[in-house]
């Protein structure tokens, strides 16, 4: 479904990605973990063509997206949804207008059909009755839910999540994790989740990739990660800084 080969990116003088190789099978959930500033979000933005790499290839459903123009990328982007870290809701639109936006842009003109799908999405994200609110009046967790509804309303075959639980309290984080799990079961989408929240990672992942110093340092199942004796991975999982886990980014 998604294959990344030798992806490299330099921003200014800093090498963010130094040859990332990854494969994500159809319907599976890959969680990418790594330290803050380690290039996880940069990697995610490459997967949907929001950034262009210096080298490497990204194959989505058999098509290399590198070098495609913005207009040609639109075809790929209809198959891939993304949840941005802050939700990235359109602040001039209400909740329901935000959720309906992708449908209207896709040419759906029947207001009944749009309203029905928006209601369905509000039910999925458990925000019924909030449809008239403006984004400025929503909490961080609600913004992420609405952003998620907006990204999946067109039923993409793959959804990318950028730090879906960052900045949220443990209870709201858990509800977001459950929501992502529910969406995976209900719509069978391929998911790539970027996070440094280990609880989220173990809750969601079929496979986990640890991005360190611009490369995939570890790739395996959550069980394999848990029993790993690698000091770097141990430090990250336990949140230890004393043993001197090398600085990334």
């Amino acid at each position: 479904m998604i294959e990344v080969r030798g992806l490299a990116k330099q921003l200014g003088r800093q090498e963010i990605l130094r040859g990332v190789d990854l494969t994500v099978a159809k319907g599976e959930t890959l969680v990418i973990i790594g330290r803050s500033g380690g290039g996880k979000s940069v990697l995610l933005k490459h997967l949907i063509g929001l950034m262009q790499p210096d080298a490497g290839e990204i194959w989505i459903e058999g098509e290399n997206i590198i070098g495609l123009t913005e207009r040609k990328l639109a075809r790929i982007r209809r198959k891939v949804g993304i949840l941005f870290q802050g939700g990235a809701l359109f602040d001039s639109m209400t909740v329901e207008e935000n959720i309906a936006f992708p449908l209207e842009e896709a040419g759906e003109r029947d207001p009944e059909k749009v309203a029905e799908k928006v209601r369905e999405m509000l039910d999925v994200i458990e925000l019924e009755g909030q449809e008239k609110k403006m984004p400025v009046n929503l909490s961080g967790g609600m913004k992420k839910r609405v952003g998620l509804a907006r990204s999946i309303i067109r039923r993409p075959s793959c959804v990318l999540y950028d730090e879906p639980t960052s900045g949220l309290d443990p209870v709201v984080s858990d509800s977001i994790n459950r929501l992502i799990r529910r969406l995976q079961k209900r719509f069978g989408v391929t998911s790539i989740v970027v996070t440094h929240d280990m609880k989220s990672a173990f809750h969601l992942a079929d496979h986990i990739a640890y991005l360190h110093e611009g490369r995939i340092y570890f790739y395996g199942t959550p069980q394999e990660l848990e029993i790993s004796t690698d000091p770097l991975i141990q430090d990250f999982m336990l949140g230890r800084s004393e043993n001197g886990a090398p600085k990334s980014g």
Partner: protein
Amino acid sequence: MFARLLTALGHSVVSFVVYVGDVVVLAGETISSAFAQKIRWRLFMQQIVEIGLLSQLVVVITGAFTGAVFAAQTYFQFNKLGMGSAVGAVVSVSICRELGPVLTALMVTGRVGASMSAEIGTMKVTEQIDALRALAVHPIDYLVVPRTLAMMVSMPLLVAEAVAIGIAAGYFVAIFLLEVNGTYYMANMVRWTQMRDIIMALTKAGCFALLIVFISCHKGLTSKEGAVGVGKATTEAVVNASLAVLIFNFFLTMGLNIIFPAGYQ
């Protein structure tokens, strides 16, 4: 020292050329999108309200007081020569050919250009433009094309309004406050004001509309570094668009004067 100065100068020239190139590319993409992609008429209408309707007060006041003060100043000079009744012609032609288009463009730059740059800039730094792109919507189609079309429709109307109000205010000041003979005033004004003066005003309005919208949208789309970056982009948009209007106005005047020469023929 001299080499360093030369390098700095060269760097500034290159930056300027790159900047102009970027704005021209944006203009090209916008024109191509306007013909090849679907037009979002709802956004166009919103922008018509934002640009045309909400600029009414600014344009009316600018036109009225410019016409009034210009009529008074012209009268003070011309009356000494016994040419008080020529004030109408001077006011009318000047407002049509220069003051109406330029002052309206500067006011629209301050009000609308700043707002465009700030709004698009905020969308950029809060990832809303990335969200548009991720949802397979081209930012130029969604943000720039409706604004460009709305400016192209609104600016000529705003300029025509400013010109008409300026001429009316000039008439009011000359006739009722300075007691110029109304019949001669009108006769001179009608005799010396030609269709080509009005065409010149509207042509300038269209050109200024494009300058303002492309410079403002470009600054918004390239703003960075959070709130400070948006503030900087907004300031630069207003300054650059104002300067571009004033500089282009000179070349437009020289060029258009060949096609539409001033004065009674």
